[in-house]
């Protein structure tokens, strides 16, 4: 039981990281109607910047701060240089151009830091475990990720639903021309939203650094999972992104942990050995297919 609870928390932790990515992607799509494959690259940039700063200065906090700021700047520059011209283009052009951007980002990172993976450790004060329940000691850092993710989700809801900026964002999503006609600098608004989404992706990357390996191409693996999250949750919806991310994170983690032993109880161990991992890695995609068959618009479609 303790093991199930621990894996559930791991799933939640993966879920909130997926949410940080999905929130930016779904905002950018919902508001600018832009399919941005290079969103995963921003996650990678965040991870590299934070790891690099931490390893060269020894200060984890400085790594986090510069990682966030750096990703924000990289995101804004990318928007200004390349993506801005893509808003009016069709999805095919957006997919191909941002696919090109992925190649550029990956190679630039390889050029700066090499192609092999970088492993970083946590500072001593984050390596602790917390005793949540008797017998359940959970890593402090993972717990911190969950809390940061949930805090960002709350903040995001507050900004979008309760502030003037959020009102402009929602208005821009439903009628761009009208908002521009009312005297709002819509281009600046777009750049802001994009930079903000980039920083969220960077934050996910920063927190992923000490847990997973940091290497060129790390963003794409996450990106495709994030697509599944967005399709399940409903495109353009932040609520949907949160729900989808938690579902995907938990299902994926529990599947990887328990599918094989569960199969072993109904079939032979060798069959379970072969089928378990295969099925576990396909689980979220099967889930996506089921959701699409039942609710093609996703679980929480955006109200447009």
């Amino acid at each position, binding site marked *: 039981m303790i093991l199930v609870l621990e894996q559930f928390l791991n799933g939640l932790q993966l879920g909130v990281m997926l949410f940080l990515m999905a929130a930016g992607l779904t905002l950018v*799509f919902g508001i600018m109607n832009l*399919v941005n494959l290079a969103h995963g690259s921003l996650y990678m940039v965040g991870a590299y910047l934070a790891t690099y700063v931490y390893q060269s200065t020894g200060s984890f906090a400085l790594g986090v701060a510069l990682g966030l700021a750096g990703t924000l700047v990289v995101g804004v520059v990318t928007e200004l240089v*390349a993506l801005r*011209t893509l808003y009016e283009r069709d*999805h*095919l*052009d957006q*997919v*191909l*151009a941002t*696919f*090109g*951007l*992925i*190649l*550029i980002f*990956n*190679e*630039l990172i*390889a*050029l700066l830091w090499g192609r092999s993976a970088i492993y970083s450790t946590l500072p001593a004060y984050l390596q602790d475990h917390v005793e949540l329940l008797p017998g359940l000691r959970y890593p402090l850092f993972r717990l911190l990720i969950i809390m940061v993710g949930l805090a960002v989700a709350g903040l995001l809801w507050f900004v979008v639903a309760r502030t003037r900026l959020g009102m402009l964002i929602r208005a821009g999503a439903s009628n761009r021309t009208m908002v521009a006609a009312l005297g709002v600098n819509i281009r600046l608004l777009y750049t802001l939203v994009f930079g903000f989404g980039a920083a969220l992706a960077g934050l996910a990357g920063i927190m992923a650094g000490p847990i997973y390996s940091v290497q060129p191409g790390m963003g*794409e693996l996450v990106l*495709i999972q994030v*697509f*599944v999250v*967005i*399709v399940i949750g409903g*495109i353009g919806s932040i609520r949907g992104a949160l729900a989808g991310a938690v579902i995907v994170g938990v299902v994926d983690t529990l599947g990887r942990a328990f599918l094989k032993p569960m199969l072993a109880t109904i079939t032979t161990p060798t069959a379970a050995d*072969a089928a378990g*991992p*295969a099925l576990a*890695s*396909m689980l979220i*995609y*099967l889930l*996506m*297919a089921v959701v*699409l*068959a039942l609710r*093609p618009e996703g679980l929480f479609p955006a109200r447009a």
Partner: protein
Amino acid sequence: MNFSARTLILLGFLLLLAAVPALAAAFKEPFYLDLFRRIMIFAIAALSLNLILGYGGMVSFGHAAYLGVGAYAVGILAHHGIHDGFLQWGLAIGASALVALVIGAVSVRTSGIYFIMITLAFTQMLYYLGISIKEYGGDDGLRLAKLSQFGDLVDLSNPTAFYYLVLGLLTLLLLLVQRLVNSRFGMVIRAAKSNEARTRAIGLSPYPYRLAAFVIAGAICGLAGALLVNQTAYLTPDFMNWTRSGELMFMVILGGIGTTAGPLLGAAALLLLEDLLQGWSLLPTWVHRYWQLYLGIILVLVVLFAKRGLAGLLPERKGGKDG
């Protein structure tokens, strides 16, 4: 039959391709035979994508899936000692058509960004499936003990014979897709692309037509996969890597979307470009080492500034853009 300038140019390209084995032999460069065979195999895959992407407007970001299914059909049979080519390639075509039917049944109902993400996600699922099945090589892949056997008909281990087989298939499929696109079936697909509401208004439901096109494209791409695994003599899940789907899309765009010659031109341009960036001795080694950086820059520039592709450079046919 009257030949337009475009058809003549396409015929010229095919004749040039037919001359490659003789030229490669004359200059003692067997490498080029291999390269151009590879180009033609990818041209077959790209022309199948062009059918749904160019004419049907379905932005499939998972076309590498069928390349993989076709390759795995051949590889799995070969692994179990079945080397009969007709059986292997038949299974490759059948299995990829079936997979396309399943993926299409879910994804073709959607459109726009949903379609892009779903096709990508399903392909990724098959990719992970390929990686996790250790029996058939898993992550490392599997060497083919023997290429597909066609008795006395054609021997694939003879590079020239294999080359002409691929050229023959490519010509046949170019013709087939051309006929298909100009048939009633093709008209419905193109109509649904340009205006779905009007297509419905005249009493045609696009879904079955789109699904049929999706399955046909999958089947053709499955054949390309069977050819590809014979070309490399090696089965790897990498055939289904999502970047491969992106490359196929780029070939279609680079060549000229929705044109007959486009996929062939695009496949040739992209693979030759990759080959040049990776190994052309006139380029400095710092280009070779990070060649994908330059490929990415070229890709972005092509999308932003040269939307009509290479086929856009060819003379226009009178009376219409489609050719």
